[in-house]
């Protein structure tokens, strides 16, 4: 395969890992939202590039969905919710930023060590993209466990979904069913999240997950 084609594909996939790191150290709500929009933009560029090099036009749909829904609609909606609820203060983290970043670097090293040796037969393109996508997934998980705030957990979850889309498009020829289903499930999930955020607002005036824990049945 043309060297340039591969380089661009790796640029986008590597860029996604980089933006995942940016997500890790955001300590303001709006900064987090903007960074997530960038994350979605990079994933949509990456998918569009895959669509072009694999000559798989259906992937453009996935790219478009990622761009419109995740880079535009969702950040705008979350922005409104945050303003509406008045929660644009600093995000509480568990553990320091430095430790989180170090853990993130370790996770990226881990995923490269795990994925590269076993995907030798899968072709250069799929191989490195899979290592990058596993990194994005693990970084998303790290973000979900290092934040107490419900909105940041949702964003962490959506960055995991972006990593999965990267993996699904790198697996050349994977039937359309999956891409559409991924995009669809994200939509559905967001509707759910929206409902949840509003319900949480009705009951306790905060979306801090820590506040939810008081109501645990066993600690009466």
């Amino acid at each position, binding site marked *: 395969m043309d060297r340039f084609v591969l380089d661009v594909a790796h640029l986008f996939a590597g860029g996604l890992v980089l933006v995942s790191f940016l997500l890790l150290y955001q300590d303001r709500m709006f900064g987090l939202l903007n960074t997530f929009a960038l994350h979605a933009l990079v994933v949509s560029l990456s998918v569009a590039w895959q669509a072009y090099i694999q000559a798989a036009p259906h992937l453009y749909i996935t790219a478009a969905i990622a761009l419109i829904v995740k880079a535009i609609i969702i950040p705008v909606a979350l922005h409104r919710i945050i303003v509406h609820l008045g929660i644009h203060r600093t995000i509480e983290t568990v553990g320091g930023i430095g430790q989180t970043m170090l853990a993130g670097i370790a996770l990226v090293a881990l995923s490269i060590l795990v994925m590269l040796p*076993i995907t030798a037969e899968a072709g250069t393109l799929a191989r490195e993209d899979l290592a990058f996508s596993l990194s994005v997934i693990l970084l998303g998980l790290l973000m979900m466990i290092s934040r107490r705030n*419900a909105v940041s957990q949702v964003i962490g979850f959506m960055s995991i979904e972006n990593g999965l889309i990267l*993996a699904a498009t790198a697996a050349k020829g994977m039937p359309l*069913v*999956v891409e559409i289903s991924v995009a669809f499930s994200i939509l559905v999930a967001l509707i759910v999240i929206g409902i949840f955020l509003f319900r949480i607002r009705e009951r306790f005036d905060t979306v801090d997950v820590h506040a*939810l824990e008081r109501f*645990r049945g066993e600690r009466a």
Partner: protein
Amino acid sequence: MNSLGLTLARAILVIPVISAGLLALFPDDRFTARVNVLGTLLTFLASTGLFFVRPEPSPFLIVDDVNVVFIVLTTFVGFTTSVFSGSYIAHELEHGRLTPVYLRFYHAMYQTLMFAMNLALLANNVGLMWVAVELATLTTVLMVGIYRTPAALEAAWKYFILGSVGIALALFGTILVYLAARSVVGEGLDAMAWNVLVTRAAAFDPALLNLAFVFLLLGYGTKVGLAPLHAWLPDAHAEGPTPISAVLSGLLLNVALFAVLRFKMVMSANPGALAPGPLMVSLGLVSVLFAAFMLYRRHDIKRMFAYSSIEHMGIVTFAFGMGGPLANFAGLLHMTYHSLTKSAIFFSVGHIAQVKGTQAMADIRGLTVSHPVLGWGLVLGVITIVGLPPTGIFMSEFLIITSTFARQPALALALALGLLVALGALLLRLNGLAFGNPYGSEARSKASFAPMFAHLALVLAAGIYLPPALVSWFQHVAKLLG
């Protein structure tokens, strides 16, 4: 014949969808509960037809010896739970815990959940199965949060977050399985079809399969409720409406385990791949022991039985992990009996919590005196679930332990310890709940007892006499599972 089978398989999917649509539209609550029952009954009848005729596998749907048992069990428990749900929901409406609008939503979601579970079981495509499990997760999240109390919201949120992460890991595993299959089968739908995967698995790259299975086991294992991934399960069971607890424990956990089993079959068909057994055995054993000890410290009746579900899913995973015809046979039996018994227990617990107005076990005493039918139903259910003879669960647990003892005595001892500890905890609590002087409200219950006693009678009868046709059927499936 073949087209009839296809019609039946489609009917199992289409009837819940149509019912969900109708139930979302009709405002009359008496009427909708009946439509709900009718929908699940028709689905159940269609599924029994699959025993006799079945369609050829298509790229998306398959009916084979393995999933037909699960489908019939799911539709049957779905039907009996809808009968229970009718009387349960009527009480909730009277007491204003649910409004008519929420009720429409509840019924529509119930049918959507049935559709999602049936689709996950019928799917021949690993991607389609994943979508179905995701849909089932979303519908149950919405139903767990339906009471909108702070505790219910917290439970739903936790379930949503943990469930989605599990689902995300499972999707990554699914993509890896496709990659492993692609180099052998070629691009396209065939590389995601069960029947193709199992027959061609021997040529797949073992390293990719190994990694895929780890992700799939952790991902779907979260949905099975295996420790240490179980954190969502007790909250979701305790805070949602009780019919949903019954369906979660009795059916959804099975569906997730079914997904793990399908992938285990692919792994076993590949000689170079990691043996999936030890991973499943250790997760199962940890779940049994953990849940057994946790049972002692419970104060909430629904939460206690949720922990008991973790224990039993652990036993089933353990049995399938041991593998071999006998352990698989016992695992299948145990899973069936657990579905029937646990949903029966939740039927009685649901009515008990309604008449007593609380789920705290300290406030529920002397049930056999104040509410004899409910109380003795609970006693019978608990005796069955802890595995006292002559019930079916005794038989399946006995088979699991003896077959393990012949191969790994130490593991059998650890499992037996877990079972005995759990038995002690449940009988201790049962003593307080069912006997002694009645305490609290003695309001009469307008319950429908038929579903509860039907389930318990089935499990009891199966413990005494299992028809030879059924035995040979289960043995056949056990062999297929490897």
